[in-house]
């Protein structure tokens, strides 16, 4: 039998502009792949894609919803980029989001019946601290006990989810709530200010934008950012340069957790207004895709969060107009990641055909 021998080689230099263009290519491939799926399901692909990607943002309300969804995604992804850039694989942003929500929500319930400008900032701050502390668990276990942060951070997601479940069913459930698994509605002073009458877009977007700016500053203009960059490229070099590896692992997890916590508290004080079982439609997991689609770059992440937010909205519209399940949105998210990883592979490696050879096996 003759077989074609294939060798995979690393490419020597990858141009920077193509590096930032491949995510765009991945998005087009996703549209194409999505069109094929819709065609197989018996829809006109062009029409279906229009329902998915154009209809949801064709009015002001839709645009506002887009920003409402992009706000937490962008915030979490920015935080994750600190971890990923320095080779720390924090997969548990969802848990940090929920824990931030729990702590922020707890404080909000504590201030029930309180009025004052100070209430909201305290809630937001406590949410950030909650997420930060929760993220420090995998960081400390990694630095002092050599555990795998992927496993620990992922498993802690379920701990946070179950804790939230317990709280909203039991001790924190609304005394006037007919045993529904939810807390009281937060008081007005514990809610994010709405930016426009009639739309859901809220002040959380400013927190996200400020975080994006600060992250850019830290990553590109500070010594900490430089250390993160070097550690991400070569841990051996970081050690040789004398960077404090352990401290840095804890710092990036703290930043990441705080961002996820902020996102959580932004959700419960923004669009939701109380704690219940499903405060996040897996924003913490989807943000991993956002972070990579945005090339771990603050500006890239802004664009990526808008695109991925659109898949959430598109799925809802498609459910209404095409009667397909809303999980189609996750299919699209999966396709984006798949095509991104695929094109990255071809970007960094080339495939060489070495010709036919007799197979002696």
């Amino acid at each position: 039998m003759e077989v074609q021998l294939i060798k995979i080689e690393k490419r020597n230099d990858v141009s920077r502009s193509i590096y930032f263009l491949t995510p765009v290519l991945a998005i087009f491939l996703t549209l194409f792949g999505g069109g094929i799926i819709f065609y197989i399901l018996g829809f006109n692909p062009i029409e279906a894609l229009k329902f998915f990607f154009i209809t949801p943002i064709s009015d002001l309300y839709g645009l506002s919803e887009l920003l409402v969804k992009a706000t937490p995604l962008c915030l979490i992804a920015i935080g994750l980029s600190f971890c990923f850039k320095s080779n720390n694989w924090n997969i548990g942003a969802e848990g940090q989001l929920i824990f931030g929500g729990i702590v922020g929500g707890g404080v909000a319930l504590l201030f029930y019946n309180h009025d004052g400008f100070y209430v909201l900032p305290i809630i937001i701050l406590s949410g950030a601290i909650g997420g930060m502390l929760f993220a420090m668990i995998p960081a400390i276990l990694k630095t002092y006990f050599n555990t795998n942060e992927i496993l620990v951070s992922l498993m802690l997601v379920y701990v946070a989810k179950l804790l939230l479940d317990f709280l909203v069913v039991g001790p924190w459930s609304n005394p006037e709530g007919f045993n529904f698994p939810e807390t009281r509605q937060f008081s007005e002073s514990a809610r994010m200010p709405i930016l426009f009458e009639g739309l859901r877009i809220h002040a959380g977007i400013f927190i996200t934008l400020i975080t994006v700016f600060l992250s850019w500053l830290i990553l590109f203009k500070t010594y900490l950012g430089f250390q993160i960059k070097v550690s991400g490229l070569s841990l051996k070099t970081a050690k040789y340069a004398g960077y404090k590896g352990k401290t840095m692992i804890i710092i990036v997890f703290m930043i990441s957790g705080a961002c996820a916590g902020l996102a959580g508290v932004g959700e419960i004080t923004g669009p939701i207004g109380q704690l219940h079982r499903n405060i996040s439609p897996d924003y913490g997991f989807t943000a991993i895709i956002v972070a990579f689609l945005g090339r771990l770059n603050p500006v890239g992440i802004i664009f990526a969060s808008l695109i991925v937010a659109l898949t959430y909205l598109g799925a809802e519209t498609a459910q209404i107009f095409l009667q397909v399940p809303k999980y189609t949105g996750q299919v699209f998210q999966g396709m984006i990641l798949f095509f991104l990883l695929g094109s990255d592979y071809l970007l960094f490696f080339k495939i060489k055909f070495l010709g036919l050879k007799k197979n002696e096996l």
Partner: protein
Amino acid sequence: MNTKLKVSEISKIYPGCIANDKVSLEFGSGKIYALLGENGAGKSTLVKILSGVVKPDKGEVFLNDESIKLNSPLDAKKNNIGMVFQHFNLFETLSVFENLSIDSDKKDEDLRVLVNDILKKYNFKIDLDVPVLNLSAGQKQKVEIIRCLIRNPKVLIMDEPTSVLTEQETDDLFISLKKFSKDGILIIYITHKLKEVLSLCDEVAVMRKGKVVSVSNTIDEKIESLANKMVGENLNTIKKKINNFKNSEEILKISNLNFKSDDPYETNLNNLNLSLKKGECLGIAGISGNGQNELFQILSGEIITEGTSIMFRNKEIGKLNPRERREYLMAFSPEDRISQAAVPELKIYENVALNNFKSSNFFEKGLVNEKKIKEHSKKILSNFSVNTDNVELKSQFLSGGNLQKLIIGRELITSPELLVCFNPTWGLDVGAINYIHETLIQINEQGKSSVLISTDNDELLKLSDRICVIYKGKLSKIMNADTVTAEKLGILMGGGSID
């Protein structure tokens, strides 16, 4: 069972280096053969050719007078050539038996009977059903050997097998190897340890710079004669002017330093003592893997040791990390210039910023001072004649020589009192080597000290004022460079002792 193995006119050329140059050797069963040589002598390449990992450019291999083609490790197995590598290829979490059955085509029951026979015959004591990670290095090696024995090998090649073994395990191994040899297995034993050659092997082939320089019976050899052949006698080339440092100030003192590693592939350091005077260059010779890496990391602060053993200019530095040591005017040039001393994906000026300390002002109040770093980088590029003036260039586009100049320049431009460098010229062309050597001599002339850890003896003799040898994590006594001969160096590097 009579086996004859012959390699004939084998040549293998890598870019910039002839690994094997018309190597011809003959082996016959019933004897244990030693293949002796320094790093880079060509032993490993030859062994890789015999085990099918590397294809020779020219030459043939004959097994029992028949020419055989070894295009892959599978071909080697088919021809009953077994190989035990220095680093084990075992699945740690699988049991011993599972590891053995993975690449065997026998039924599990048959295999178990066979393995038990082998265990009994050679008196190996290994529990087949424990996970491999619970075994000692010596036991893991036995598993590798059993894996070869299952296939009834005619030839068994052992690549530096004792580097991870204790003394007791080494003795055990030798007993087993002698038994295998009696049973008709041809054994080729690769090493650079002279004592092992004399106590185990019947014949010894010495390789140097890709060529076989001698084949002889071990009965006719002594440690001294083998050392001479291994290292070569043309060592006394240009030497630096030797100075007398008796009255100079002491810069560095290490006393009774011990280091024990958790990693079995790392070397433990035992009771190290050394001292260094101002303006002096101390050379540390040795065959690689004898503790040089660990010693470098201890000097640079990548490995932190208990506080009392390292004094630098009368200050205790054992607990300081590399960045903190730089504040005390130490500088370091590691062996691995591509993935440790510099990051290829970073721009030149970013790589320069890796050597950062307070007075450099690269980072003020936590912010990057790009202008300062770039100015500083420009100065390095011109002072150390690096072949570019573009500080924005990614370091991956620099040749090895230019990258090493950049690294040495980065370390030296701060006028450190001590430079520790580890194989600063490996893989470089002659021009770059000369430049680096001149630079290293220059800093000594300026009254700065240096520690040169190197596996290149020519380099050591050219640059050092005093030389010692590291062997199995121990330092020999420190000798004045003008009294060092090729013979002495060779004996010490091979684990022998001199008076």
